[in-house]
């Protein structure tokens, strides 16, 4: 096992374990911090996959933006009552069986299809310079989706402000 494989398995183990912590912890703050660890591990996997720009975006936007937003909301909302209540809903048995079946199907499909999906592996350095390629592609081929995404963000911003505003009557 070489260095790249060892790194992958260590990061994958960290990501899966902290993802499990996200959905099992009672306190949402602990969940949020576990989710930050998962996102960090996935960002490092992006680095290994030669997606440096995306790794930076993941850290700045997900960890620096979205997770801070989550932590702010956890502190805004009074969770003392919810902490002492039952954490799992009534249909957790059925949900567990369904998720187990989903996991089995996905694993079987990926494992059985690993040979048929054996596309030629790109040589190292094929996606370099990463940021430049993304910029060119984003502003030329994907110009319209890019503008639509900005519109989506505007709508989301207005919606969030409108929803979280205190009613003054």
């Amino acid at each position: 096992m070489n260095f790249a494989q060892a790194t992958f398995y260590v990061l994958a183990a960290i990501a899966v374990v902290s993802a499990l912590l996200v959905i099992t912890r009672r306190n949402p703050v602990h969940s949020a911090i576990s989710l930050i660890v998962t996102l960090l591990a996935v960002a490092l996997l992006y680095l290994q996959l030669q997606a440096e720009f995306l790794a930076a975006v993941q850290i700045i936007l997900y960890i620096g933006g979205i997770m801070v937003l989550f932590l702010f909301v956890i502190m805004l909302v009074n969770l003392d009552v919810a902490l002492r209540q039952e954490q799992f809903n009534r249909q957790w048995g059925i949900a567990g069986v369904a998720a187990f079946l989903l996991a089995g199907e996905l694993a079987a499909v990926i494992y059985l299809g690993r040979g048929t999906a054996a596309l030629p592996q790109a040589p190292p350095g094929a996606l370099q310079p990463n940021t430049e390629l993304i910029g060119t592609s984003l502003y030329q081929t994907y110009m319209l989706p890019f503008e639509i995404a900005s519109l989506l963000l505007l709508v989301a911003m207005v919606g969030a402000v409108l929803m979280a505003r205190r009613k003054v009557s």
Partner: protein
Amino acid sequence: MVPTWHYLMLSAALLTIGVIGVLTRRNIIIILMSIELILNAVNLNLVAFSRQLADVSGQIFAIFVITVAAAEAAVGLGILIAFFRNRDTVNADEIDLLKW
């Protein structure tokens, strides 16, 4: 060199964990975090295939997924705050006004 299907397996594991979180937890904040996990699993798939095919389009798609995730988190948490202000609870199974 790590084969692409190992990344797909990791992605499937993260997706399943996210699905379990969405289906079984009562706390809406943790349900939203599980949705982030699912979207992140999708991104990992896109980037892994982008690496294998040496095509940057997968990474562009991942950027759009992150954009949508940010918008979804902002709106979802806004709804959560409005709901908590009205009903004093963060449990998903107590949001049952539309339930017959």
